[in-house]
């Protein structure tokens, strides 16, 4: 009352401000790291231990509940590798903005293993046993993808340090591949990645796929979706041009060249796989990180770009099937049966 004495609020303005607040949002969730926090997507799984590490990837919510493969090759590579290494983890959908490094995937270690990791090796092991010299990252700090390899390597040593001989993954998972594998790795990082980027982002026939995977989850607004799509396209185009052309700043991606390189690369990988006796790359006894990175592309190409829609340029899935004597498709099927047995039927048809 005293306020209105020297400065009365005009009636219409008063009624306008009476309408506020228009919306009251719910209180924010607890931070993801707090011990009592359980992500809503993980709640149906109360039977499984909730203190498992969580891997944040590009994935739809339905698939995340089923722990299905991610639709992003970079994420799927690490998801596959962690599964190969026997690491148990949850998968949650996320975006690049959530990651401390600005790129997915990243892993949030579980909270409950903290005490055991710090006390066990020190108290029970004789000094002769080499413990992991440095923890890759302190517990509860997110592990970026660049350190996931070390994380997986140390995972079992931390879980049961008393029985190092019972390591779940055989040592061959972490064995060194020949130097030649780096040359073959560049086939994946350059040729096959460019073809994947071109097909998914720039190929006009695959716009529906891009929308379904990356654009529609970001927003329901048409304007925001259009902007996101444009930004994604530009980013993909710059990526491809940066890696291939030497002289021009702006340029045009030549789809014919991109697909020719991809066909050559898949052919070379198929031949390399054919020379291995064990069925995994470079004669390894067990699938390695290299197999995981090949699988990340071949699985997604077979799943999303497999259809032969009379579109001879975009069907990378057909290229995978026809490479060599079909070694890559068989490799992909074997890994699927090994890691996602429930999905293998979907792939074989």
């Amino acid at each position, binding site marked *: 009352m005293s306020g209105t004495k020297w400065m009365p609020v005009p009636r219409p303005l008063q009624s306008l401000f009476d309408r506020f607040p228009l919306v009251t949002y719910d209180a924010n969730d607890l931070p993801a790291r707090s011990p009592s926090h359980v992500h809503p997507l993980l709640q149906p799984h109360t039977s499984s231990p909730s203190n498992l590490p969580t891997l944040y990837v590009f994935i739809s919510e339905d698939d995340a509940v089923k722990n299905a493969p991610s639709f992003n090759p970079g994420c799927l590579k690490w998801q596959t590798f962690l599964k190969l290494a026997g690491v148990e983890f949850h998968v949650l959908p996320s975006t690049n903005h959530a990651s401390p490094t600005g790129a997915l995937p990243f892993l949030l270690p579980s909270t409950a293993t903290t005490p055991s990791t710090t006390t066990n090796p020190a108290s029970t092991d004789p000094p002769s046993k080499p413990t992991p010299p440095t923890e890759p990252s302190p517990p509860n700090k997110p592990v970026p993808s660049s350190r996931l390899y070390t994380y997986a390597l140390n995972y079992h040593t931390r879980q049961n340090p008393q029985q190092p001989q019972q390591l779940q993954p055989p040592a061959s998972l972490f064995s060194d591949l*020949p*130097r*030649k594998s*780096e*040359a*073959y790795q*560049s*086939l994946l*990082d*350059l*040729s096959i990645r460019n073809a994947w980027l071109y097909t998914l982002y720039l190929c*006009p026939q695959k716009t529906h796929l891009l929308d379904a995977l990356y654009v529609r989850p970001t927003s329901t607004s048409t304007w925001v979706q259009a902007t996101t799509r444009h930004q994604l396209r530009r980013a993909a185009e710059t990526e491809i041009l*940066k*890696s*291939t*052309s*030497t*002289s*021009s*700043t*702006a*340029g*045009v991606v*030549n789809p*014919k*060249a991109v697909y*020719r*390189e991809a066909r*050559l*690369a898949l*052919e*070379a*990988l198929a*031949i*390399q796989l*054919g*020379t291995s006796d064990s069925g995994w790359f470079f004669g390894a006894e067990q699938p390695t990180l290299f197999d995981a990175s090949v699988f990340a592309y071949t699985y997604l190409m077979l799943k999303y770009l497999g259809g032969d829609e009379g579109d001879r340029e975009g069907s990378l899935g057909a290229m995978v099937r026809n490479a060599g004597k079909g070694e890559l498709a068989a490799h992909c099927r074997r890994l699927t049966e090994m890691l996602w047995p429930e999905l293998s039927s979907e792939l074989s048809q």
Partner: protein
Amino acid sequence: MSQKLELHVWGPAFGLPSIDAECVATIAFCEQRISPTEYKLLQSSPSAVPTQRLPALYNPISDTWTSGFSDIVAHLQSCSGGDEAKSSYSPSQRADGAAYTTFLTAHAAPLLALSLYVSSANWAETTRPAYSAILPMPLPWTEPSAVRAAMARRAEHLGMSSLDTDAAEEAAAKTEEAGLAAGWVHVPAALRRPKKTVKDSLIPEQRSRIRLEGLATDVYDVLAEADWENQTTEARCLAFAYLALMLKPDVPRPWLSEVMRRRYQPLCEFVEEFSKECFENGSTPLLPWGDSAANSSALGVASRFTKTLLHDVPGLGDEWQRWSLQRQQNRQREKNEGVVVSASSSSSNDLLLMAGTSITLAAVGAGAWFYRSLPPFGAPVQTWVKPLTGLGAFGAAGVMFSMAAGMANLD
């Protein structure tokens, strides 16, 4: 004569037939696979070819342009039937060849870019003069810097931009300027105490020597393991091109060639042997250089210069380049496949955008011109003061005097 294939490449430098790795590789490939009577080499620059990228191959029979090493190799193989290459190598050789070719493009190219283009000292002492020697004036003003920018972008992910001291100095000057603008106490430069540490007295290459050596060994380790005698021709050509450009140029900061000479002797030997085998003691007179007079006439150079200037216009240049390249690509595809490619949606959008922009600009210009031609506007009430003459022009005193004078007059 006119039926010869035309291979447009960057000019020679450092005792190699070209300054650019892909051009060297393409020349070596043509030298081994095609007889010198079937093709001619033309010294050029990206602004002179419609694909705006070198090396570029013009096939007068099909009237098509192909650019880039792998595209040209694929084109030549498809011309010659393509079976010969397949039959002479085993499948695993072909697979290795593809892998090493890609590895060189993905990893050797950024490394070479660091040494020849990103490092300011090497660029100013060696690379830029080499470009100036092979380009007609005034092209050295525009094209080499565009190449350097592209190369720097290519080596960006290695995180060694500190080698570019020009950019670092520019950034330092900018922060100092910002500090001056924000602060109110200004200490003149002469009175400031120089904070010279050991780190400051090192050149950037010395400061990051360990990381640079690490980057170099990562690449050399993989390449040194390959048996280059038994690789496919294209892999050998590309490996030679990159390794020779790492080894040969006489640069002031030779970390790249030092690592190779000290620890990877087989790679150096491979470069020497290949050079002998392919270019006859490293000299280049046997290569079928053609007369590139058409592109270096005064008019040609002027149009190329204008083109490169247009590409440097911020914002508009990129769009213009993209649009012209897209048009060129569609035309090529029509020729190759004999079908009329309808302008894809993106190019028609760009056309629409350009038309819209030009119409807007024209409308704004016309409006400005119309406005200027209108009679001048003014205040609603105009006051005209009759200039006073005589003593009245001296204000109040003048009036007094004039009155006095009037009185005197009356008297």
